[in-house]
């Protein structure tokens, strides 16, 4: 059994269970911390670094999604420095791919766009890299536009952890990392893909989409995930 602890987030007294993350407790108390790779129901990888927070007495910044709460902890989620870093992270994501919102099917329903707006980003302070990336439209129902991919690996995790197919994975390293199906075969030729569409629904941007949608028409419904994850955990007896 986990103990219950009390802590301070941005000066506000809150309580949480010892096995909860700072992010969980913050959200329960209406404190918003931006995230892009984290999604309830999936394992946490701490990769996007948007949820970094300051903890009194800890010299490093720690990701709220994987850091457990502790008794007497004092967390700060809103310092000037954290805001600056968060803006830079989002700017980096925009500079890395080819994100052109006006022609994107997810325009208006995009988590990357929403995060940028919430952080009041009105320009990108570093050079665009303009990578050359091929669209994969070989699947009958879905498409992948890697130009809009931010490598959050939600699709990799949902396919592996929830669907159990592990069709998606990351190939290459560093700035050359890219999303692949199976052993870098076209999606439509994948032998493991069950065409369940979970990856499309949880993709935060327009990188994974349902064919036939036009600009701004692609809305995602990731709400199924916490329920599925809960049922799976119950079946596994945890």
């Amino acid at each position: 059994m986990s103990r219950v602890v009390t802590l301070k987030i941005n000066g506000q007294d809150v309580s949480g269970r010892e096995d909860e993350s700072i992010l969980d407790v913050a959200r329960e108390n209406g404190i918003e911390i931006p995230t892009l790779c984290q999604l309830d129901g999936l394992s946490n990888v701490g990769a996007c670094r948007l949820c970094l927070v300051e903890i009194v007495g800890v010299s490093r910044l720690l990701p709220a999604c994987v850091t457990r709460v502790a008794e007497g902890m004092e967390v700060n989620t809103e310092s000037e420095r954290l805001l600056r870093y968060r803006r830079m992270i989002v700017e980096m994501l925009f500079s890395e791919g080819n994100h052109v919102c006006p022609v994107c099917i997810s325009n208006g329903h995009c988590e990357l766009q929403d995060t940028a707006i919430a952080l009041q980003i009105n320009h990108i302070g570093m050079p665009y890299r303009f990578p050359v990336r091929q669209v994969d439209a070989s699947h009958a129902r879905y498409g992948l536009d890697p130009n809009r991919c931010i490598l959050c690996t939600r699709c990799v995790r949902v396919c592996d952890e929830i669907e159990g197919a592990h069709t998606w994975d990351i190939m290459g390293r560093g700035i050359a990392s890219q999303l692949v199906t199976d052993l870098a075969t076209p999606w439509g030729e994948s032998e493991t893909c069950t065409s369940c569409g979970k990856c499309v629904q949880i993709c935060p941007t327009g990188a994974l989409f349902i064919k036939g949608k036009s600009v701004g028409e692609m809305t995602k419904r990731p709400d199924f995930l916490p329920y599925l994850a809960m049922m799976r955990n119950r079946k596994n007896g945890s």
Partner: protein
Amino acid sequence: MHLEDLQRITEEHHAAEAGLKHVLYVCSGTACQSSRSDEVVKALQAELKARGLEATCEVRQGGCQGLCARGPMAALDQGKVVYQHLTPEDAPTVVETLDSQPPDHLQLPSTMPFFTRQVRIATQIAGLLDPNELNSYIAAGGYQALLDALSNKTSNEVLQEIVRSNLRGRGGAGYPTGLKWSTVAKAPQTPKYVVVNGDEGDPGAFMDRSLMEDYPFRVLEGMTLAAYAVGASYGYIYVRAEYPLAVKRLQSAIKQAQKQNLLGSNIAGTTFSFNVEIRLGAGAFVCGEETALIASIEGGRGTPRPRPPYPAESGLWGKPTLINNVETMANIVPIIQNGGEWFAEIGTEKSKGTKVFALSGRINNTGLIEVPMGITLREIIFEIGGGIPDGKRFKAVQTGGPSGGCIPEQYLDMPVDYESLASIGSIMGSGGMIVMDETSCMVDVAKYFMEFSMAESCGKCVPCRVGTAQMYDLLCKISEGRATLDDLVLLESLCDMVKHTSLCGLGQAAPNPVVSTLRYFRDEYLAHITEKRCAAGVCQIKHEPLEVHS
């Protein structure tokens, strides 16, 4: 195998040696092999045979003598004479002069500061034994520490010895080894694992390679002692695949140790069992980071994960795991033999013992050295290292590889330890030291290391994946003379951001080469930006075409 057996093997070995007039160990490390030391051994053996001396003189493969620049090297009769630049053609001369004085061009004076200023603990007698032979190691006192510990000391006594020694991790960060060991020892879960990190990937670093090649049994014995101290039952040695000789020697060492019951079930008839397996890296630098290394051993993609939990609590397959660098493990046996206090007397207040450094770059005595902590950089570079070749001027020394920084001349007299190097913006790192003279451009050096970090970033977290690429692009712009002062401002803010937000050590340390060169050689950056000039003449500045007025 028991203590009495060690005694017997040692006596037999010494008796056999006593019948020999001369024993010559020719370095068989990777560096000397690449300059034909194998052929030298064969030529010398043939020459001995031709003269009918093979019964009284022996030529054997030995370990590294350290001075790679003068290779192939060899040591006669426990280092009485040290040979340099041997070629197969020199064999007749060498054999002829075995009893007398060899010609000067083949000999290195034993009074050279390179030899006299070193203190060798981790590499102790690595050059004077046969790395392929367990008996050669035993005759040199090997496995005494382990068998004595297993029969006369509790695991906690072994652990306390390491705690008392104040040994700190030699992989780079300098975490107290004793603290790490006791954390693993106290972790309640079982089984526990011991992992030796031999994924040495820094450009200009070859300390671990040499230790694994020349002293495989020393690493194994240290590892077994570690397993005994923390209560581990299984171990992995993670070696990069680019070190084929190290892998071969370790494999042979594991096999021989297993055969003699120095590894495996019920070691030396005690209740302690420990087995070891080698895992090969597939070329990713990031796998030297402990959580990425664990992922790689488990068979996954070599990417780090956030810490805590630390591997000491939850490592390989979620079990408590002790991860130590090769050089750390090579220090365990002498500490157990001589006591923690003995080790703690060497070095500075906070950094004890010795450190192995790999000297490379613009320095006369390229090679491997082991020096006590607290020695100054000037002593290392100008006395042991023999200074800068061709009468050039010293400019900077780079320590710690892509995670370290460049140290300028004004800090040459500072004693070397973990804290002092960190205070001037570099790190101890694993021990690579790249010396640079006035022909090096510091912008180009920063660009080189940033390219390395960019290529080796795993791509998992955004700051490291995108940040290193952005910083590399900016450094290219500066070195090509296309940058503005605004670019410099952006570069500095990227350095700060990547350092504080990256997931693992690779990203957190990736800006260091830029930060340290900006700190000490800012004028060079400014010369590239405002004057479009590279003082060292390294960077290819692209000048705007001249406007032609008609």
